[in-house]
């Protein structure tokens, strides 16, 4: 793909530049241009690209450049962080009412509404133990109701429909009546796909909105969507006052710049990401992953991050505090191990902890080797697995092992190490609480 060379090209440009202490209009100019191209190739809307890069420039002007990086790299990092901040939102959870929660899905044709309705039903029934009713309001597309019916059946979720000769507003009303009287927790309404310029069909949605007052009105946006996505979203938002967005088909190789455009223009939170055709393929939305994806300059960002971390003394303290926290994840483990590496050898760490046996050089080398193994094992886990290592049972374990080209035994070893460390952290915390904490740690 065209993007792969981008970060190389980028680094090429900056080799030519001298390192300076501050970011200026001039030393950022070509970097800004490259960022623009990257964003446009990721389908971020033209106007958004323009405004966003202006924001970034304003933010970056006058900032100090880290000694180890050049202005361009620094700028990309700033841009990346800005992206993450923009894409992240506070209210990404579905709002659940005390009684019945009603959710309406809407969007253009073929965006993935019906499948997402099934996925949400799955999440709510199987993960959150809610009593769910699915309602089919798409009376237009041939076999749309059948499609949702099949999904409902697969999930063992109740399904409500009134055939294709009914009025969707009526169906919604009846579905809600049923849901209320039969004690459902959630009603999910799948509506027909429509163009935002189709006045008649947009009015239909407005009417449903009026009679139902859905708790959530979610817009489905295809990850492959181009420049126009932002106009579509703002039209739907104007008519329906959306509460959020679900981005579908993120398991493809599209960059998904529409996510940024919509977030930037409308502020709508992106609540979920569709990552496959199965009903379990619904993920929460990860802003930083999305930022990487859109910008396509992950390596530059990581590089700057590392450079920053290395000089950030506070990080060490923060890590130490985190270590005390019993519920730390594989990610934390990996980060800690890296920290340790950065702080010098394991020996010097050991010296910091009283009562720790002395470590020989041989042991150090061994530990360093181990570190590599740990890293590749953890890297081939999904973020979910890293956060919940307990879920790593048979097939997942096999996959992870295959992914990093190591054996199951080695995967087991990593998990065991995590368990041990977790235990150790807990004990340390106990120490800390009882005031018997070894010096140097846990100072607040």
């Amino acid at each position, binding site marked *: *793909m065209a993007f792969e060379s981008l970060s190389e090209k980028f680094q090429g440009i900056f080799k030519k530049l001298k390192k300076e202490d501050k970011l200026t209009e001039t030393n950022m100019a070509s970097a800004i241009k490259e960022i623009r191209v990257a964003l446009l190739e990721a389908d971020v809307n*033209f106007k958004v690209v323009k405004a966003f890069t202006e924001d970034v420039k304003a933010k970056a002007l006058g900032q100090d450049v880290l000694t180890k990086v050049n202005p361009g790299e620094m700028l990309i990092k700033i841009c990346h962080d800005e992206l993450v901040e923009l894409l992240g939102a506070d209210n990404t959870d579905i709002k659940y009412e005390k009684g019945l929660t009603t959710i309406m899905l809407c969007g253009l044709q073929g965006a*993935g509404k019906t499948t997402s309705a099934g996925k949400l039903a799955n999440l709510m029934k199987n993960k959150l133990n809610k009593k769910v009713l699915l309602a089919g309001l798409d009376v237009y597309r041939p076999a749309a109701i059948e*499609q*949702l019916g*099949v999904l409902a059946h697969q999930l063992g979720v109740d399904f409500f429909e009134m055939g294709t000769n009914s009025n969707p507003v009526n169906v919604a009303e009846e579905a809600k009546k049923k849901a209320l009287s039969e004690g459902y927790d959630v009603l999910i309404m799948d509506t027909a796909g429509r163009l935002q*310029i189709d006045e008649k069909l947009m009015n239909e949605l407005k009417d449903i909105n009026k009679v139902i007052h859905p708790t959530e009105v979610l817009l489905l946006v295809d990850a*492959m969507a181009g*420049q126009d996505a932002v106009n*579509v979203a703002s039209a739907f938002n104007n008519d329906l006052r959306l509460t959020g967005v679900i981005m579908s088909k993120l398991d493809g190789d599209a960059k998904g710049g529409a996510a940024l455009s919509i977030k930037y223009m409308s502020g709508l939170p992106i609540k979920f990401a569709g990552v496959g055709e199965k009903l379990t393929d619904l993920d929460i939305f990860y802003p930083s992953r999305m930022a990487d994806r859109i910008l396509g300059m992950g390596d530059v960002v990581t590089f700057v991050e590392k450079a920053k971390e290395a000089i950030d003394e506070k990080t060490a303290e923060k890590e130490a505090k985190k270590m005390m926290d019993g519920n730390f994840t594989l990610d934390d483990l990996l980060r800690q191990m890296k920290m340790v590496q950065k702080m010098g050898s394991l020996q010097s760490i050991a010296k910091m902890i009283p009562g720790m046996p002395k470590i020989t050089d041989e042991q150090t080398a061994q530990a360093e080797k181990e570190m590599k193994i740990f890293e590749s094992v953890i890297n081939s886990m999904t973020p979910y697995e890293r956060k919940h290592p307990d879920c790593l049972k048979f097939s997942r374990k096999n996959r992870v092992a295959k992914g990093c080209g190591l054996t199951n035994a080695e995967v087991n070893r990593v998990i065991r190490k995590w368990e041990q460390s977790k235990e150790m952290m807990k004990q340390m915390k106990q120490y800390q609480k009882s005031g018997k904490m070894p010096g140097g740690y846990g100072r607040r």
Partner: protein
Amino acid sequence: MGLFAFLKEKFSKKDKNEKTEKYEKGLAKSRQAFASRLDDLSKRYSSVNEEYFEELEQILIEADVGVSLTIKLVEQLLDKSEEEGIKDPVKINEELVDTMFVGYVENGGNITNEIQFREDGPTVLLVEGVNGVGKTTSIAKLAKRYMDKGKKVLLVAADTFRAGAVDQLKIWASRLGCPIITGKENGDPASVCYDGAKYAKENNIDLVIVDTAGRLQNKANLMQELGKMNRVISKEIPDAPHETFLIIDATTGQNGVSQAKSFKEVSNITGIVITKMDGTSKGGIILSIRDELGVPVRFIGLGEKMEDLEEFDLDEYLNGLLVGNGK
């Protein structure tokens, strides 16, 4: 070289055929449109400058034409403007259309829209694309088009995967009044293709249209499945599938090129149907696809009904693209 000159050169050796006439006619039409409609932009400028070109760039990018092709086009224009001292915005716009038109025509062979039928025996059309782009609906539209022309059409429901997909095509078949071959749910799509091919041979079918499940182009196993379907079909009917259409949704952004590239790798794409052109997206990605891969657009989808299909008309298309959405 301007477009008229180009066409003259391109077609002068041959007799004036339908195509030439069609394009010349189309061209006159789009020239007119330019003079009257497009030039809200040119009216704001008495002569072109950097800003003018930037605005042109914006129009193209906002139509999903893509950064690299846009830059290429605008650079060509800039050169031209410098070389020939063209400063009149109206002239520049004409040049742009010419450049795009010529670029499109030159970038690949086929500019025949209609399905090319075999002399005898069934002609097979395979329809592919990513999820939700409008494959099944386009099939209904194409079936109608050729049934109206007196062809015997058979639909083959080889999307055995998506819930309700077979029912969807069945409903279309009954509306159209044409036969349909279906298989088992979650069965092997290649075996449905086999049944379809067999039925077509035995029943004097002119056109077999195969619906396939939507698949994202980065899923290797699903892409291989298409290869298998192709092989099964070609075993049953010589040289089949004779046509393979890739469906591209007009709302698609830059990923469209990746789609075309990947589908082209596993099957012989003979054309694109660009759907949902009744919406506000311009589908400019088809120009990048043509530019990079030479695949032509054959039809456009303009709605959800079975009548809503038209032949692709380059002039009309380019014109619509450049008119912009006025925002």
